């Protein structure tokens, strides 16, 4: 191991992988430290990548030149596009992946990367020189010099596993937790929080009676995550759906006193969106059943994952509970469900670059920032990696706007609002969701990835070709006239009077109709040879959403006015005596960069913002005056 590098990444989970690859690809000498080389790119919870809004994140990471999309395609065993029929903007891709293969693929990709040294080593401390990072201390006593550090330790900091009233210090899969690093971060003045999350049991395939479950196959046409994936992908497995029943709920209620959460042994705050089965039964007592998705963990294993049944009840109770379920009467648990408690940072201590405020060169990414999920981790990892490089090169750091990506939305949310429970991305978190679609992730982010240097020339050329084809095809649609009688009768029946009078229309106008698909149009005007599915999908969605996107753009412009009202770094809130104390405290803590960001801080009301705007005006007038006097 080198004793001096540019960037050190601590943790080889989904955030660490993206950060390390980005750093190394951009030419930095990089070390990636992991507690266990066999656990690189682990999927300690569900064996799937993507899902609502998370799928968007994966596409965005890919568009920037990241790793996750390619890995999810390469190891895909079943794929589904969720939310079909609810509008393109909220459609999300989800891949079931082969967990072991995913880890292998991640490990080999890291191993083959130039400039990157992958090593099994525990980081025990961050070394500073004043307010600048100078290196990392390891458990073997070395100190390695570097110019930037990305801490991506996931749930390992001070981790404790709970199963029933038993608990022991351990990270995911009973691995070694990281203890000293938390203390080191606290010594740097960072405030930590304690969160918890959980995972369901893995069970043996042969112990499930699949005849009693509902089969859930993958999509007929599989769409890849990565804009680079060209090979056709095929489903290899099915998933299944089972349901809990009254008996299951009885077992749970009877044993609540043995749950570490209900008995008070766990103090960490769990995710609202990912409740344990105990939570579901207690909080939604009127529901007679809850859904369980039975998902294979891979092709080379008989382990099955029971999504929806995360629990921290004692092992025997788990078995009793699972066995009440139709199809599970002989269930054989291979890994018990457990809850895990861990330390994380209060993310309001971070800049939107993911650098810790006041500590130059220290970045954090992933679950350590109070988020949850592989995709959320990867999204932060790639940005932290890019900005670690920018620190080394003394370049202006990259901030992704919330109006331009879900990655930007995620980061703006956590650094501005903080987190009260583990943060999961959802489409409802973005006010720009009609524009932030998965089909246009490359349009939005590949130019940024190219400018940063993560998108190589080959990919950039390919991107430009797609853009040209898209433009040309949209132009063609604007010029082609189609008689509506050429469409099949079912398609255009019951249509308004106007179209009867106006029976020849531009293809572009017709495609805007919800019932007409792009392929209905090309059946009439012919296809363009050599145009990929990517392009035809982009054309279809772009034409249909043009009006809405225009509206969103106006909103983005409006928002930019507030975002454009910068708050000077030195601006003091404490003496604004006219302002509510709560607002002053919140503003002093977050130190927003603009009036727009200030407006998103919870506890700061629109009235406070109006006051702040007046104070800022007075402030800038006074400063100008003073400058004039000089």
């Amino acid at each position, binding site marked *: 191991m080198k004793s001096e590098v540019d960037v050190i990444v601590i943790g080889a989970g989904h955030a660490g992988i993206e950060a390390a690859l980005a750093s190394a690809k951009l030419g930095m000498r990089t070390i990636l430290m992991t507690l266990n080389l066999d656990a690189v790119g682990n999927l300690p919870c569900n064996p799937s990548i993507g899902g609502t809004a998370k799928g968007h994140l994966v596409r965005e990471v890919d568009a920037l030149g990241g790793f996750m999309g390619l890995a999810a395609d390469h190891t895909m065993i079943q794929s589904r596009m969720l939310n079909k029929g*609810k*509008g393109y903007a909220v459609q999300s891709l989800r891949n079931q992946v082969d967990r072991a293969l995913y880890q292998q693929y991640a490990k080999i990709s890291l191993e083959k990367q130039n400039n990157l040294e992958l090593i099994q080593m525990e980081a025990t401390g961050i070394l500073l020189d004043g307010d600048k990072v100078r290196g990392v201390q390891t458990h073997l006593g070395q100190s390695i010099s570097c110019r930037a550090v990305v801490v991506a330790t996931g749930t390992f900091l001070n981790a404790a596993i709970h199963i029933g009233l038993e608990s022991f210090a351990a990270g995911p899969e009973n691995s070694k937790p990281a203890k000293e690093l938390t203390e080191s971060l606290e010594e740097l003045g960072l405030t930590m929080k304690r969160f918890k999350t959980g995972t369901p049991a893995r069970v043996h395939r042969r112990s499930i009676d699949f005849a009693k479950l509902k089969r859930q196959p993958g999509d007929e046409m599989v769409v890849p995550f990565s804009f680079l994936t060209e090979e056709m992908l095929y489903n290899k497995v099915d998933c299944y759906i089972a349901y809990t029943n009254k008996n299951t709920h009885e077992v749970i209620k009877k044993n609540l006193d043995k749950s570490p959460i209900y008995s008070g042994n766990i103090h960490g705050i769990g995710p609202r969106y*990912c409740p344990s089965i105990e939570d579901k039964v207690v909080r939604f007592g009127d529901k007679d059943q809850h859904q369980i*998705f039975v998902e294979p963990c891979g092709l080379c294993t008989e382990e099955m994952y029971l999504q929806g049944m995360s629990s921290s009840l004692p092992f025997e109770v788990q078995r009793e509970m699972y066995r009440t379920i139709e199809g599970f009467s002989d269930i054989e648990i291979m890994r018990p469900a457990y809850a895990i408690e861990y330390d994380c940072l209060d993310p309001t201590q971070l800049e939107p670059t993911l650098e810790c405020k006041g500590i130059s060169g220290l970045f954090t990414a992933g679950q350590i920032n109070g988020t949850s999920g592989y995709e959320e981790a990867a999204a932060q990892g790639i940005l932290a990696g890019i900005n670690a490089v920018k620190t080394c090169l003394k370049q202006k750091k990259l901030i992704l706007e919330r109006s331009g990506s879900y990655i930007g939305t995620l980061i703006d949310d956590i650094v501005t609002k903080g987190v009260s429970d583990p943060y999961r991305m*959802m489409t*409802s978190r973005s006010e720009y969701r009609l524009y932030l679609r998965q089909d246009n992730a490359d349009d939005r982010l590949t130019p940024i990835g190219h400018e940063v240097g993560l998108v190589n020339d080959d990919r950039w050329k390919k991107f430009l070709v797609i853009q040209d084809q898209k433009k040309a095809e949209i132009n063609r649609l604007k010029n082609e006239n189609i008689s509506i009688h050429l469409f099949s009768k079912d398609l255009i029946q019951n249509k308004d009077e106007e179209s009867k009078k106006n029976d020849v229309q531009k293809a572009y106008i017709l495609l805007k109709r919800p019932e007409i698909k792009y392929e209905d149009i090309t059946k009439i005007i012919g296809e363009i040879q050599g145009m990929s599915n990517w392009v035809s999908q982009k054309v279809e969605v772009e034409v249909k959403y043009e009006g809405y996107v225009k509206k969103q753009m106006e909103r983005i412009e409006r928002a930019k006015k507030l975002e454009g009202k910068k708050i000077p770094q030195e601006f003091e809130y404490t003496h604004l005596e006219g302002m509510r104390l709560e607002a002053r405290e919140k503003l002093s803590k977050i130190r927003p960069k603009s009036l727009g960001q200030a407006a998103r801080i919870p506890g700061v009301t629109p009235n406070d913002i109006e006051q702040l705007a007046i104070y800022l005006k007075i402030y800038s007038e006074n400063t100008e005056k003073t400058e004039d006097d000089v």
Partner: protein
Amino acid sequence: MIRISGPESIDVAKKIFVPKNAKKTLKKAPGYSALYGNIVNENILVDSGIALIFRSPHSYTGEDTVEISCHGGDTVSSEVLAACLNAGANIAQPGEFTKRAFLNGKMDLQEAEAVIDLITSKTMQQNSYFNYTRNQRKTQIMEEIKAEIQSLMAHLMAWIDYPEEDVPSVEEQDFLGEIQKLKEKTQRMLGDFEKGQRQKRGLRVVLLGEPNVGKSTLFNLLVEDQRSIVTPIAGTTRDIIREEAEICGYPILLSDTAGLREGGDEVEEEGIRRSWDEISSADILVQVLEAGRISAYEENLVLKESQKPKLCIVNKSDQGCDTDLERIENDYDMMVIVSAKEAPDEARETIKNAIRQLLQIQPLDPDAVLLSNQRQRESMQKVDDCLAKILAFAKDQLIYDDVSIYLQEALEAIGELKGENVTDAVLEEVFSKFCVGK
């Protein structure tokens, strides 16, 4: 009462107020205390009175404040005011105390607006009416609208963000039905606002007619006060004179225009030009004719072309009509015959009734919940527009991602109105209402 507010208010008051009890000083007086003493302007006694002391932040504006109650009457109070100004105070701009109260966090925007409405309200009914806006009812209705939008939004977002879980699916017909119900509420509020605006702004009534047909007499009759100069010489009224009268609690802004005549001197031409401006902003045009000279009346083209309600008053009925009224009757929406001189009370009632009928003025429902100003109306209009857009989808099919954006905008608009940040409220509701999550 004179109010002095600001960090130096006590220093200013000290210079003009000398407590009778020599042991007491304004400087040492605690908040909410009162002192009796003499009011002086540069050592000359002006009046005697009470000084009430408020210490920051426990005052209306949130600043140190002194309120001096002196003897009534314009002369005394203006002398006291002069004394304050001499002592270093600045005169307050309209609404300044309220503005300061807002800036100092003593009231929110809605309250501040309600106060300003109260200050500027014009008639008694208006006063009690706008007082009402400070009441709970408006807040309650807004809260209802907000809660309903939020609940629809939470259901929609739970259904979108958790496609595989047992969130009840959003049924198009039920959903649109809810939106329709909400829209009725927003429509009612917008309609009531228009009525309220009418009341606040007043109705513009423009009196037109040949010179010296008695417009000014009628004008005075309606405002029950002698303001226009009434002379027998044609063209006396050259300026627009505006005065207020009241019908059903609505202020009526009467303007008496220079007679519309071709030619005349320059002053008169200027008057005529202004009359045209008046006509274009009028709510109702009132043509005044003299009974004895109707035959001499030439058709007024402006009046004929205007789409505004038109009333014709035939005045001086005691003189008797010189011609058959049928000739001109069709030019107007209504015609009344009065004699302002002989039966003034009857004339006034007849004219007011006619205006009330033509403008369809209804007495205000004292229970109506009113948006207090243009800003609030705009926010409510935004809510209404968003709901309209969602309903417009119904003719094709609902595209839920777009629908969700309109709902979100409606929710933000109502948040703007209430001065609340609503962005996280939906998520809270998703998690509390729906059992979602793996």
